[in-house]
């Protein structure tokens, strides 16, 4: 039992992970036939993963139906939206599966395209527009002086804003703004990115070594 639940999945994951990693780090020119074989095996493994991931989408659709059907059944708050959601999902699915003459079924169906372009895209654009107001309220909360950190942040924000819209009254402000954005902020961002890259690399190694397992106990 322990073999099936623990050892087999871990060994498979480590072997597959190492094979794919090896294929990334080796060039076919240098290894010749062995390199080609490694590339082929790696591509097949990735393709298999893609096919399995496609089944996850099916599980996702079932999950959406179960969650919202329960909401409707239990007459929870927002149940009306759940009815709209399920109806919209089924309508788009029906039109997507429908094969019109000369056209394959799928997202390229004209009706599905029309729904995406005229309903989904405008709603997404409207939500994106709300970001402006969210940025304003977030900035208001962030820039209230509570401690030294927020005082520094407020000072920098004012200097950058003045540097951005300066009317030539203080000639040094645009240069100061450029220096703050290009040197100070960029250095901070690169430091964060460096830490993230190292963190991601070591997380990958831990997953490859089977220390952290998203599968089985």
């Amino acid at each position, binding site marked *: 039992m322990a073999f099936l639940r623990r050892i087999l999945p871990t060994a498979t994951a480590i072997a597959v992970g190492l094979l794919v990693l090896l294929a990334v780090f080796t060039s076919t020119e240098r290894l010749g036939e062995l390199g080609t074989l490694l590339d082929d095996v790696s591509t097949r493994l990735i393709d298999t993963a893609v096919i399995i991931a496609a089944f996850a989408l099916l599980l*996702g659709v079932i999950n959406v139906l179960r969650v919202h059907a329960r909401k409707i059944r239990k007459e929870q708050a927002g149940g009306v939206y759940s009815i709209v959601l399920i109806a919209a999902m089924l309508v788009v699915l029906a039109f997507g599966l429908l094969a019109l003459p000369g056209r394959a079924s799928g997202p390229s169906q004209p009706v599905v395209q029309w729904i995406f372009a005229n309903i989904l895209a405008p709603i997404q654009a409207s939500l994106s527009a709300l970001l402006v107001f969210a940025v304003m309220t977030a900035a208001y909360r962030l820039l209230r002086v509570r401690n030294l950190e927020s005082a520094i942040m407020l000072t920098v924000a004012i200097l950058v804003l003045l540097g951005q819209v300066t009317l030539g009254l203080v000639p040094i402000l645009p240069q100061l703004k450029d220096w703050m954005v290009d040197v100070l902020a960029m250095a901070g961002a690169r430091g964060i990115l460096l830490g*993230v890259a190292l963190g991601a690399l*070591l*997380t990958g190694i831990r997953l490859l070594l089977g220390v952290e397992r998203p599968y089985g106990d």
Partner: protein
Amino acid sequence: MEETGLLLLLLILPVLFYLTSRARAGKGGKLRSLPGMDELSGLVGRSAETGQPIHISVGIAGVGGAATAETWAGLTLLEHLADQATASDTPLIVTLADATVLPVAQDILWRAYVRNGNPGGYDPTQVRLIAPDPMAYTAGVIGLLEREPLTANVMVGSFGDEYLLMGEAGARQGVHQIVGAADPRTLPFVYASADEALVGEEMFAGGAYTRRLPIQIGSLLAEDWARWAIAAAILVLAILKIVL
């Protein structure tokens, strides 16, 4: 590029094993306090007292893509919270945007129930796929934050600009928020709206802080060593460029 990656991997592996052996011998040192991680351990207790669930988001990315490590950071924290929550029968609501994470998150939750001897308590709809599109996911999470009474909102994973709409919705509701993100463009929004932020690499330290296995502590130390080495290399190269 591949050669650089391989070189980095080959350099870091022996360092990782050496530091892991030191951590195993009890010479790993003390982990510095991360307020976000410290807060996490008290959340489930608070939730058990109020009877209100904790919302956990593992981000908008899936497993298998470029942001797998970020998603996995969220899943690691989910595992920790699920273990605590199932032990005290506290409800969790997990939301995600990518279907590939759904079976993984459901499995994590189910295993936590089994470990705590209550497999019957597992409800697969505690994990909810909201929508694969980031904006649609955002709309779904905003609805959840506004409608469901929550003890806390934990969001750790890959997020873009749309995070701000969710973060602001949580802040408006007065929900305690712990958020971790890696994208420098998202971090200012996190800082503005969350009560505790896990900035950049801090979100990957979840396993070391919650499980404290020698290899996880060794991996944190290896990260620190690598960072110091890279910073020293940058400094030396900058000086050489000025001098030569």
